[in-house]
């Protein structure tokens, strides 16, 4: 089938070929190819490791959620909007916490955007207009491999005709493979991004005297050169990653780069693009925002939504033992949460909905396998720039989709509430 959409990373490429009978792929990157390959699946639903029917598993899951005081409903970034919507409603009905993968990913960036706003554009604009691409604290070659070719580096756009028309700068604490495609590599010391942004803001405004000879391991002359390069470009895109959001300072680092972008926009045009990880991590935030007003870390225990990242992210709720059950959908917190948070996950009943066995499966009480979104189930996803894209069903499957499972679970929960 032509024009298949890849449901691995936030670039959500929609120009791919996939033969569902033979599992043959064309034009995918290695990550997408792995996504669209045959892999070991969770074969059937289980309760305490014993095989049960879908109906029994869903019923047990509904009971656990209904009987707990404050369950955590976490994950959502690798499923479609239709399922996420049901997840948010379910969280409200069981008076639980809705949180999603961004809280171990770009949530600090979203926090900064809530505070400061963001000058943004679509990936299409990046491709068509950007003549200076700055990758800051991200490694697209390994995390979003087709992003550089489709949009930001080699892409042939309307006004920017290709690599020759584009300057590419990589700023990072280590020289990654992505640095090899750059015309300039700037190495900063770990944890100094905030300082470097501040120095650049001072230089943008002409306060050269205020900047010391070296900032974050970068010589002042190099920073002056960098700022001049920015001022003389027509359309700059700063693509940033967790190198900024996951170090000390978190959202404050991102706030500072947003302020830098605001300043650059007084001289020329500049936009900011967070390199979002999972294919629908933006949807996991957007859908929750249109359902209840907040993107993540939402607590419904009082019957209305309250947003507080310092209390209600999955990690915070687990660290403080503030949740007594968990529903994990399309995610693997046992592999990706810090050790101390996983310790608590081991103590409470966990329900998992996922196509593949992972570390969370090993500690789950109820395991419900599902169809793979974008391969065996269709729906809508938001690309990293917020553009909604339809993802297809390209392979027939006996597995229930996330949407079907959650619909049934919600029905059961509502029934239990009535009783």
């Amino acid at each position, binding site marked *: 089938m032509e024009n298949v959409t890849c449901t691995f990373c936030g670039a959500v490429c929609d120009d791919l070929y996939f033969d569902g009978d033979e599992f043959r792929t064309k034009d995918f990157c290695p990550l997408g190819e*792995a996504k669209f390959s045959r892999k070991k699946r969770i074969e059937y639903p289980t309760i305490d490791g014993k095989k049960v029917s879908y109906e029994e598993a869903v019923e047990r899951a509904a009971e656990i959620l209904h009987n707990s005081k404050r369950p955590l409903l976490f994950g959502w970034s690798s499923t479609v909007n239709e399922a996420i919507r049901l997840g948010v409603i379910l969280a409200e009905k069981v008076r639980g916490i809705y949180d999603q993968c961004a809280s171990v990913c770009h949530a600090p960036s979203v926090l900064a955007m809530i505070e400061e706003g963001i000058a943004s554009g679509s990936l299409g604009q990046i491709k068509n207009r950007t003549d200076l691409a700055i990758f800051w604290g991200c490694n697209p070659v390994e995390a979003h491999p087709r992003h550089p070719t489709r949009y930001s580096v080699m892409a042939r756009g309307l006004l920017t005709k290709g690599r020759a028309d584009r300057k590419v700068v990589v700023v990072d604490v280590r020289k990654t493979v992505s640095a090899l495609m750059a015309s300039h590599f700037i190495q900063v010391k770990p944890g100094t991004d905030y300082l470097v942004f501040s120095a650049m803001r001072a230089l943008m405004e002409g306060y050269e005297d205020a900047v010391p000879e070296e900032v974050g391991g970068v010589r002042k002359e190099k920073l002056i050169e960098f700022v001049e390069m920015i001022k003389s470009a027509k359309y700059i895109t700063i693509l940033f990653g967790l190198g900024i959001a996951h170090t000390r300072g978190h959202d404050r680092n991102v706030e500072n780069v947003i302020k830098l972008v605001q300043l650059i926009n007084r001289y020329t045009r500049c936009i900011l693009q967070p390199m979002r990880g999972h294919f629908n991590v933006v949807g996991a935030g957007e859908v929750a925002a249109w359902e209840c007003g907040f993107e993540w870390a939402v607590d419904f225990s009082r019957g209305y939504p309250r947003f507080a990242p310092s209390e209600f992210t999955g990690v915070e709720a687990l660290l403080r033992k503030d949740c007594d059950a968990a529903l994990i959908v399309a995610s693997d917190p046992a592999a990706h949460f810090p050790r101390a948070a996983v310790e608590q996950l081991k103590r409470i009943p966990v329900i998992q909905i996922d196509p593949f066995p*992972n570390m969370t499966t090993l500690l789950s009480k109820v395991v419900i396998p599902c169809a793979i979104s974008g391969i065996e189930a269709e729906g809508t996803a938001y690309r990293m720039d917020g553009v909604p894209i339809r993802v297809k069903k390209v392979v027939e499957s006996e597995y229930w989709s996330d949407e079907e499972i959650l619909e049934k679970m919600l029905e059961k929960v509502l029934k239990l509430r009535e009783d």
Partner: protein
Amino acid sequence: MNVIIITGRTTEQGTLVEDKLTHDYFKSVNYCELNKEDFARMGLKEGDRVRVKTDYGEVVLFARKNVIDETHIPEGMIFIPMGPYANQVINPGTDGTGTPQYKGVKGIIEKTDENVIGIPEILR
């Protein structure tokens, strides 16, 4: 040796992320990458193990030199692919943001004869 720990995605880890309970996945996340000079200074050979300790935990990992020649990790820094091994030593504190500090964590590494444990043991 004092180090700054950086964690992050790699292509290998990314391609195996839906194949978590396989030996290939363990191999893609159970090592740390060091600067070449640091590697030599610690008297390490390929296949040797190091213990990484931070205020938040410790873990034994395989030690590797910069995997790709043209890339570079500065002296005093180690890189661990994101995943269950890295998460033994990162800072779970969120500074009120709700997001742990996965990068830029201070730690100590030393050579060890101990073995790298498997994923089921990590969960134990």
